[in-house]
């Protein structure tokens, strides 16, 4: 099995590695959260590979990729004749992962029925195949779940069981978005490029600047796709013109050092002062020297909200 690893030396990544190392030594259930493409599966693999269960299987199931009607069968298995297509007995993934780890990706997509069945399994480890009239087996599985959804919000809306949330989220791990750790971008570019071309990643200065400044809404997965695209379509050094337009755009427009801050008319001067102070202080806390300001009044015509 390929060794999973987190690339980067930012504080966030170093902290994450440390967290993985310590939770891997336990059997605690883990709920991994983070935006799409941040590497939730990589983190799950690392936990399994560093755990005492590493000799057994890591079974992965993406709950969003299986129709709800089949999800129960995938997880718990079925006995012959339990439904039309059940020609033979089939063990579920929870059985197959015995002594190992199961990674349930996109757990927020599971139906309330599957959530209830999972909860029962987490409470007693019992696996009842669909259609079975007796207990099939018990399974000793470490459960790692992941989601990009806000499960607390789903709980409030009755779409996710609160009791299951607390069972799964014994150790919550949040993976930061790539835009929050831009210092890792050069290392990630190098890592993916090396895997594809076995040579160093070299880019023109403006191209590298654009790659680092881009916000990467699709996170590491998007970066990986861009590297794959570049590796077949461009020569070294990678030029700004070779980058996808949305990345090129961040450098094409010079960032103006002059800009306006417009306040909605309902803010009083004291409020404006308070907000500007907080913004200026934050800019200095980021390492900027400061912001110079002058003020104007803008006379505006405001539409009254219409009421039904």
């Amino acid at each position, binding site marked *: 099995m390929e060794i999973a690893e987190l690339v980067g030396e930012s504080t966030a990544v170093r902290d994450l590695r440390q967290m993985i190392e310590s939770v891997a030594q336990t059997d605690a259930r883990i709920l991994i959260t983070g935006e799409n493409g941040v590497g939730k599966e990589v983190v799950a693999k690392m936990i399994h590979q560093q755990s005492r269960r590493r000799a057994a299987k890591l079974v992965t199931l993406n709950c969003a990729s299986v129709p709800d009607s089949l999800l129960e069968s995938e997880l718990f298995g079925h006995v012959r004749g339990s439904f039309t297509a059940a020609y033979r007995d089939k063990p579920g993934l929870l059985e197959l992962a015995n002594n190992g780890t199961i990674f349930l990706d996109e757990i927020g997509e599971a139906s309330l029925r599957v959530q209830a069945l999972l909860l029962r399994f987490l409470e007693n480890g019992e696996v009842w195949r669909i259609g079975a009239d007796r207990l099939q087996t018990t399974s000793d599985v470490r459960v790692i779940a992941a989601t990009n959804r806000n499960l607390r919000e789903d709980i409030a809306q009755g779409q996710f069981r609160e009791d299951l949330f607390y069972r799964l989220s014994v150790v919550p791990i949040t993976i930061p978005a790539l835009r*929050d750790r831009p210092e890792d971008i050069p290392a990630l570019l190098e890592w993916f490029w090396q895997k594809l071309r076995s040579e160093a990643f070299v880019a023109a200065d403006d191209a590298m600047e654009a790659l680092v400044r881009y916000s990467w809404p699709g996170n590491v997965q998007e970066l990986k796709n861009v590297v794959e695209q570049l590796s077949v379509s461009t020569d070294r050094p990678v030029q700004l013109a070779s980058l996808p337009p949305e990345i090129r755009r961040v450098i094409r427009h010079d960032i103006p050092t002059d800009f306006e*801050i417009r306040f909605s008319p309902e803010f009083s*001067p004291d409020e404006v002062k308070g907000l500007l102070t907080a913004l200026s202080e934050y800019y200095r806390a980021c390492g900027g*020297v400061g912001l110079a300001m002058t003020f104007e009044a803008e006379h505006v015509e405001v539409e009254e909200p219409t009421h039904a």
Partner: protein
Amino acid sequence: MPSLLARIVARVTALLPEDWVGRAGRQFRGTVANVAGTEKLGELAAEGVRRLAVGAVSREHSEALKNYADEEEARAAAELTRRTLNARQRQEDARADQEQIRTRILRTEELMGRLRLFDELRLRDAVPVWDSHGNMTIVRVQSGFDWDAARDRLFTQTDMRLLAGPSDE
């Protein structure tokens, strides 16, 4: 019926352009953009605003805001002096461990600044939005705005641990 109102516009210049286009500006712009979680003003507030004319701010506003601008200028000058002194100190004290400590201090300062900014915005139900020209509009959002989601966008788990301080374990 449309009503006529005056709103304050701050014309801002980032001192030291290299800060603004570099890491400090990037961090600042990214954080501010993350508060709203959208680039569409209309999703946050009914901003049915038509600009009519630009003029001087009223006398009472003018005095308060001018004082503020002067104070801000003085703070920027002090920051520039501090930075120059720090650079000299760093040259004399360029040990790797001290550099690491400095990096941690800068990160903590940024995080505390981010927290203060978030608190101030939340206190006033104010949400900033950047437009495609690089200008910012700060609107008053309605009570339905999800500040918990904004906090989650602004602070990672690592940030929260740092803010909580060292554990007793």
